[in-house]
């Protein structure tokens, strides 16, 4: 499990307008590129200082590549990060609050306790 790296992907994509569009249009390519090039970036350090050991599990890679917000929730990704980024990508295709409500409906089969989000 690398919940931290899932969250890092969602966090770094959500804060960058170009990456939000890139992930919307090409999720598989964006996830592949990001894991190779960006996963090891230490956000408060210069580019030469990189983390060497971070990688997605196959399930995590699949969930991100499929824009599968339900699977991300089940894997313990931080729900606020997922929701914020997915609203940025997909709200525009729907009427007011329509996307947010459908997003919740897709998780109606889930019950308490929710997956642990601690990293």
């Amino acid at each position: 499990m690398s919940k931290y790296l899932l969250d890092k992907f969602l966090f770094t994509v959500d804060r960058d307008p170009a990456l939000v569009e890139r992930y919307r249009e090409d999720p598989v390519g964006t996830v592949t590129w990001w894991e190779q090039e960006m996963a090891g970036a230490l956000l408060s350090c210069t580019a030469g200082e990189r983390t060497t050991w971070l990688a997605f599990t196959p399930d995590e890679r699949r969930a991100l590549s499929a824009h599968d917000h339900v699977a991300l929730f089940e894997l313990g990704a931080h729900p606020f990060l997922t929701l914020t980024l997915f609203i940025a990508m997909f709200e525009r295709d729907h009427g007011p609050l329509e996307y947010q409500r459908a997003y919740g409906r897709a998780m109606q089969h889930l019950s308490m306790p929710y997956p642990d989000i601690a990293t």
Partner: protein
Amino acid sequence: MATVAAVIASTHHPFYYRASTATGADRPPFADEWVAKIEAFRETLTRAEPDVLVMVGSDHFHQLWLDNMPQFLVGKAPFFDANFYNEEREFGLPRMTLRGEEDLAAHILRQGLDADFDLAFSNELRIDHSITCPIITLRPEADLPIVPIYTNIFAPPLPQPKRFVQLGRMVRELVESWPEDKRVAIIGTGHLSLELGGPRQFGEHGPDPEFDRKAVDWIASGDIEGCLAEVTLDSLHHPGNATHGFMDFMLMMGVAGDGAKADYVDSLDLFHTMEAYFTWYPNGVPA
């Protein structure tokens, strides 16, 4: 010595700015009632005639991140830029710049550390909607210097609820021991029951109206003991997965004091979450 002119606790709803400024067909049906309630709430701060605002909120993964996450952090800087790209994108919030009150921030940091509260600090902090929402609702002129205090209600492991109450009590004492003849309002925002990114999100009401009723009663009556007896890090998962933001209300109960009944209480049942507004005047209701 400084005077605590008002203690204010509120929800921070990022949709308020857009709802209150929308016109015509874009204006939601609940906007007029919401604006009327906010304007009445704003008057409770205005009449306290504050010089300085201590602002308690929580960064929503904007500047603070999991590679270096503080539990409690005080902003000490001459200015604070505010609001982030994704808050403009999702909520239409404007970019802002607020002045900082560095002397009070330094006092809280030094005295807080000496009182065994190991506060983190930031000299370059961009603040987010947890602090700008109450500026927009309570002091839209954005003309007063602030001391931002951030809490971690977001990225577990979180501090225990009692720790939020203890921090609130300490902030009250430290403001009152600041050797400046200034009127300080202490303002904090949190949530009642709230679900974000889970199956109970964006319902017709908040996800747990029963919790909301109890929470409003605890806050309005200053029932810290009763609140601490029921609220735990585990219990807060049940009313909704983002309900740990209620601990910022508990912090504000600590500021107001044990048994301190709020002088002003109001709420508004909106879709998605309940709004709630509280004001205390520790030194008497202003004329």
